[in-house]
């Protein structure tokens, strides 16, 4: 007898079909992973089980939970089940908690509702629960509000809330996607322990095969609203019988082919392209009280490093470590409060404004979110040509030629010129963003998490493109990422940042195989790794 049984579930919202004949089962105490890229329908499958689908959804098929039919069940039955027998954790911890209620009230609410506990009893239990998820009440009292907690702490509150009634089934929808790798590892460990303690069934939804390989007993692979493969996790991932599963696995541990050695010749290391010398960026804070002046936030604190021509340098660290601030400083989009930065021998601070365009031409940027990278009202010709503002003497025809050349460089044709950003997919937009960065023929490209918003298969293509361009054009990269796998595949050397300082620097393989600093060790340990996860499984044979 299984806990949850979904049979031939089809779903459409309005006229758009979302799911087609999805079937899956979760046994009592079993951990089932659902993986797929965006648009695969994995979240919708979970919401259907909770009967929390958006308005305008129509479904067919059957969903039975503990032998009760929940598909189309009335609100009264579902309200009994939700929070009591089945519970859910959502992706976005920043918005999933009510901002105007204390965490104590929010955790206790379900107990008062489902078990009829008094407020005092519920609060006492909430305290124990929060302690269990790692929020001891002496440091995190029940009277805290969500905004006083970090993302990871909020996700712990979510978990406490979901586990409060020891549900038989817990659904976790990308519970760690919005978090750092180190936090991800902690939250996953917590989930695994709680599920074991309370004998819950768990559906873990993720886009990350490595996470699923570490955590789950059963695996369901979804694509375009259909289940393409299902089976025991270890076996499925070892066999890779289905071509799509194999493709996912290959893409998620993709390493672009390189022809040049990752070690610089001594000739290259004579004149650094970028020289960062004792750079700090402090932000003053608004005063918190009349009596004390608040100390400044040291986003970047006395950082120095050199970057040599044709080098690909990774910059890793937990969120808030200062890596994005450092990138902005290198690009002269923000001024350091101390220290100096030289590009190609010229100071970003003391170069007169008239010479700045010439300097800016040498460095360009690629962002994380391909959707936010372009002005939605400009055509691609105008958008890609934007950096040519730095070369005011070009004729209109020259500008267009440069745009077309840049598009060609990233594998797109001139047909893109007259289109608007929304007419392109995420992967295409990231190519366009790279084209925009290439158009001034820069030497340095700063890439801020350029592949982390992309699905794995597209991510692999964009990584190939970066590597190819670097070798063809001799570009220098400063490559910021929280994903060690990506950095290892793309970079020669890596800088590890922690608390505004660079705590470690070295060739990627050295640092990732043998991290010295505590920050680097934390990152390496927490990074999910498909091969390592599979090697540790005993059902993989």
């Amino acid at each position, binding site marked *: 007898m299984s806990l949850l049984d979904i049979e031939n579930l089809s779903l459409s919202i309005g006229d758009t079909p979302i799911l087609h004949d999805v079937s899956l089962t979760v046994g009592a105490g079993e951990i089932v992973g659902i993986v797929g890229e965006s*648009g695969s329908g994995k*979240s919708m499958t979970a919401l259907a089980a909770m009967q929390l689908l958006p308005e305008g959804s129509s479904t067919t098929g059957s969903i039975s939970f503990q032998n009760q039919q929940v598909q189309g069940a009335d609100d009264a039955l579902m309200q009994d089940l939700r929070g009591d027998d089945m519970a859910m954790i959502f992706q976005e911890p920043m918005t999933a908690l009510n901002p105007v209620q204390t965490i104590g009230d929010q955790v206790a609410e379900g107990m008062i509702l489902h078990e009829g506990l008094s407020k005092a009893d519920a609060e006492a239990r909430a305290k124990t629960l929060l302690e269990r998820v790692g929020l001891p009440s002496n440091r995190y009292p029940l009277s805290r509000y969500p905004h006083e907690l970090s993302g990871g702490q909020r996700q712990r509150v979510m978990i406490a809330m979901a586990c409060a009634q020891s549900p038989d089934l817990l659904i976790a929808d990308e519970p760690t996607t919005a978090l750092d790798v180190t936090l991800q590892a902690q939250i996953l460990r917590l989930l695994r322990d709680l599920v074991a303690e309370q004998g819950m069934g768990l559906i873990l939804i993720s886009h990350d095969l490595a996470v699923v390989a570490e955590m789950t007993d059963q695996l369901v692979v979804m694509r375009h609203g259909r289940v393409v493969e299902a089976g025991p996790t270890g076996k499925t991932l070892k066999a890779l019988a289905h071509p799509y599963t194999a493709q996912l696995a290959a893409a998620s541990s993709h390493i672009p082919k390189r022809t040049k050695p990752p070690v610089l010749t001594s000739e290259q290391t004579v004149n650094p392209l970028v020289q960062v010398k004792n750079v700090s960026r402090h932000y003053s804070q608004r005063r918190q009280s009349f009596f004390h002046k608040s100390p400044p936030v040291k986003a970047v604190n006395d950082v120095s490093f050199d970057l040599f021509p044709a080098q690909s340098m990774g910059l890793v660290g937990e969120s808030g470590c200062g890596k994005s601030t450092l990138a902005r400083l290198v690009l002269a989009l923000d001024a350091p409060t101390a220290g100096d930065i030289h590009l190609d021998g010229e100071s970003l601070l003391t170069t007169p404004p008239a010479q700045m365009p010439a300097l*800016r031409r040498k*460095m360009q940027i690629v962002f994380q979110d391909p959707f936010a*990278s*372009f*002005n*939605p009202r400009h055509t691609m010709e105008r958008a890609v040509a*934007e950096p040519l503002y730095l070369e005011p003497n070009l004729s209109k025809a020259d500008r267009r030629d440069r745009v077309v050349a840049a598009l060609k460089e990233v594998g797109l044709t001139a047909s893109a010129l007259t289109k608007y950003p*929304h007419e392109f997919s995420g992967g295409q937009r990231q190519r366009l963003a790279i084209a925009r960065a290439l158009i001034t023929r820069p030497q340095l490209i700063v890439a801020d998490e350029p592949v982390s918003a992309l699905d794995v298969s597209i991510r692999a293509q964009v990584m190939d493109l970066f590597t190819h361009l670097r070798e063809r054009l001799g570009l220098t990269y400063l490559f910021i990422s929280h994903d060690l796998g990506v950095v290892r595949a793309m970079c020669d050397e890596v800088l590890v940042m922690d608390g505004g300082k660079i705590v470690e620097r070295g060739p990627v393989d050295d640092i990732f195989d043998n991290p010295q600093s505590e920050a680097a060790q934390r990152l390496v340990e927490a990074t999910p790794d498909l091969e390592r996860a599979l090697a540790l499984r005993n059902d993989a044979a």
Partner: protein
Amino acid sequence: MSFLRTALKNRSFTIGFAITALVVAMAAISFVWTPYGVDDQRVMEVGLQKPSLTYWLGTDNLGRDLLSRIMVGARNSIAVALVAVIIGVGLGVPLGCWAASRGGLVDEALMRGNDVVFAFPALLSAVMITATFGPGAINAIIAIGIFNIPVFARLSRGAALALWKREFIMAARAAGKSAPRITVEHIIPNMSNLLIVQATIAFALGIIQEAGLAYVGLGTQPPFPSWGKMLNEAQTMMAFAPHLAIVPGLAIVITVLGLNLLGDGLRDVLDPKLANRRPAEGDA
């Protein structure tokens, strides 16, 4: 014109657009033709009359045709409200954008300045201006216009602050573009929808405010017909000639309703959330 085709599928927009077009047309026609002379006083021959086939909306106690006066009055309402909106947009939007792009002290000063102006509803400004310079239609324009400035400054500042955090702005900065240039090329075009909707609402509000000021004698002065002044004159004759109060009042209600519906319709049609919606590849 494809915009109009999409927009006309929206009911609010269609009704609002039709009403607004009608009022504007009425005002425009009044320049070349009105049923009767707008100031033709025929106390003895015509006198006070209820609406009839000859005088569609009736006449006032001086025998003046109400329809003619409503048509000419529309000119007045539209002109005052429109100029007040132009003042609000013309000063408020640059100020708001400037504050957003500079931040720090400039921003703080502007927001505090906004607070000061917000403490002066159009009526109080009009009281001050009239007490200082004497009555006139221009007072109404200035008073309403002044109050519109912080409305637009606050709106454009908020929108601009959100836009400045977007990555395409960062790309423009990496291209060496200055803040004013980025504001013109990227910021203002991306908040234009918001501004159009707010301008429509401010226009409607301006018509109500102008009528209120004219009603208490702080706005347009007789003999030029204005809807608010007509209501004031009607007050003493309410008991035996209610149409004198009902007709100008309905003119205001219909015009404002039309503009509000137009604004609502535009908001739906131009909704940036809908326009910038990501293609259906996001995991729904």
